């Protein structure tokens, strides 16, 4: 079942770390190959070698950054779920803000605050889009409205010959 495809909370952290790493790896490979291609000296061979070198050097680092972001986000999310004992979009928003803040900690307090605001806004947008999609697709699953003959309190008095025919 797709809705139960997410692991329960402690193992979710490892899953999210891996997912983020994969995203960073593939995205980093694509972007760095283009960047390396363009920044290499002319000649197709040199350009291809340049693109390969850029992918080998930079994409593991990008993937690692994504993995740290994803793992930290998931850890804070699971911690909030455990503390608050409920799952709602606020957990994700607070986790996004906290992750952004923690990862900018080396740059001082103003940078932390700015990064936290950016992380929070980003997650709020993502959650908002998710809720929008859920509301739109809920039309699909709405049960049919009750028909005329379903509700016995709406029938009115029985027809005149009713009780006699029952016996």
């Amino acid at each position: 079942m797709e809705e139960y495809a997410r692991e329960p909370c402690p193992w979710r952290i490892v899953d999210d770390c891996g997912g983020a790493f994969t995203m960073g790896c593939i995205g980093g490979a694509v972007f760095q190959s283009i960047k390396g291609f363009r920044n290499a000296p002319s000649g197709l061979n040199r350009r291809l070698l340049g693109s390969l070198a850029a992918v080998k050097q930079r994409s593991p680092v990008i993937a690692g950054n994504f993995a740290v972001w994803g793992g930290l986000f998931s850890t804070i999310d699971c911690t909030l779920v455990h503390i608050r004992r409920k799952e709602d979009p606020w957990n994700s928003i607070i986790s996004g803000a906290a992750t952004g803040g923690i990862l900018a900690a080396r740059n001082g307090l103003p940078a932390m605050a700015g990064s936290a605001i950016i992380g929070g806004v980003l997650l709020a947008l993502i959650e908002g889009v998710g809720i929008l999609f859920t509301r739109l697709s809920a039309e699909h699953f709405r049960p049919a409205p009750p028909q005329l003959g379903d509700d016995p309190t709406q029938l009115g008095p029985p027809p005149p010959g009713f009780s006699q025919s029952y016996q």
Partner: protein
Amino acid sequence: MNNTDPDATYAASYSSKDPSMNVSVHSQQNLAQLSPYLNFNPVYLPQSQPEFIFPEGVARQRGRFELAFSQIGGSCMLGAGIGGIGGFYNGLKSTTLAGHTGKLRRTQLLNYVMKQGSATANTLGVLAVMYSGFGVILSWARGCDDELNTIVAASATGLLYKSSAGLRKCAIGGGIGFSLAAVYCLWSARDKLQDFRQEYNPA
């Protein structure tokens, strides 16, 4: 029938000595004469395997793609742990040698740990991504999932990872991948190998 056996007087018709009873399990003599229901084939006992209910259309084993993310995340974290410990050790050695103390030493140690930790984490993570990618493509192309997929995916990962370091290193990488996968497959299929050995070595 005419038995002169003194034990046979109690329940002579259910004795295991009677050839027409077709007894497959021979319990002790006293039990066999106590009850006819103790002579049964143990195959009819309920097996002690767990019986799960699966929704329709779902494979019994978790597919490679579902396992992929947790394998990648796990190897990333494992690499971070190993690299962190190695970096801590190296940092301790070099800061003690250089005689650093206090805040400088703490910052230096932190730098060593982060640098080595992230390097090993990235390396193991990239290897896991390559292995999972090959495994998923192979199991999708072949339509089935078995140990051959594991071995081929691991060898291909080793070859690809070292492919830009020259032919010899590439071959060594492929060989390392193949041997690791072979050891893992032999270990994970040890029950099946046990039966294999008993079948071909009757001694």
